[in-house]
């Protein structure tokens, strides 16, 4: 029973890890930073509205560049 439960918990954890982190840990990190920043900017109307989307766009570019096709040996 304990073994079964442990296996279930492990499978559940693996599912969420693959789902949220998978092969793009930088995007999970980006989300964490954006959430933290949103709390730091609590109530700051303009800065939050401009900074959060810009930060998301910057992380997206970094992640996309990381996933690009490279020349053989490049």
């Amino acid at each position, binding site marked *: 029973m304990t073994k079964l439960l442990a296996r279930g918990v492990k499978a559940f954890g693996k599912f969420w890890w693959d789902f949220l982190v998978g092969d793009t840990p930088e995007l999970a990190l980006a989300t964490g930073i954006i959430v933290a920043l949103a709390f730091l900017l609590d109530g700051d109307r303009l800065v939050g509205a401009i900074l959060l989307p810009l930060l*998301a766009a910057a992380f997206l570019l970094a992640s996309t560049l990381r996933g690009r096709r490279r*020349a053989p040996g490049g």
Partner: protein
Amino acid sequence: MHSTSSTIVLVLAVFGASAVEMVEALTIVVAAGVSRGWRSALEGAAAAAAVLGVLVAVVGVPLVRYIPLDALRVVVGALLLVLGLSWLRKAILRASGHKDLHDEDKIYAETVAELSETGPGGAQPGATETAGGSGPVPARAHSGRDSLAFVVAFKGVFLEGTEVVLIVISLGAAQHRLGLAALAAAAALVLVAVVGLVVSRQLSEVPENTIKTAVGIMLTSFGIFWVGEGAGVNWPGSDLAIPVLVGFFIAVTVGYTAFMRTKLPAPAPEESPAT
């Protein structure tokens, strides 16, 4: 009161996400139906859809009722953001040529080949090509119950549907419109299922990457909005910030796709024939 803009984006995002995932699931269901028998494949797909529906009710309803809205919005926003960014990344890489497009025909042919080789109802003489030329299928499909067809169809619909369930629960719970989100997902499921069954093959002509891009843009926009909203950032124009965010991420996606095209490696020079 819910603003019209956020309702429209909610419905479009859920409908689009469900449609694109269901097109992928349909490929597997059609492959199972054609090669092993329709009855079991359809039963498997229906069972998975029912389990996914129960999941939405069991997980979604308590979330809406018992979790404070601000906390829910931060968690949901983060989830949507990570999902949206990863969909957008994949869509940009595919649109710019850095990643191969999702090939339904190839997946279909592989699934049919795999199912045809396994057990009763397996490869039969007289295999023919599908209407779309997607590979060989057995000339006669099974008419009785087939546990493999059931399991394959169930797994296909359940795995593709899990992401949809998360989107339905996230978007629905954050706006307290779980019913509307579930309805949009169900409408997409019915539409894809009906079209798929009418044409009786996988829907490889659906512009999957375009839909995925649109949904990625909406999920990312909603994600940023809810994270900010839940953390106390006051968006100028309140809910009207959502279409503005959507516009911003459309521009970002178009710009990044064009930029990434310039980063494609030069094709390798052709080798000269040996002399």
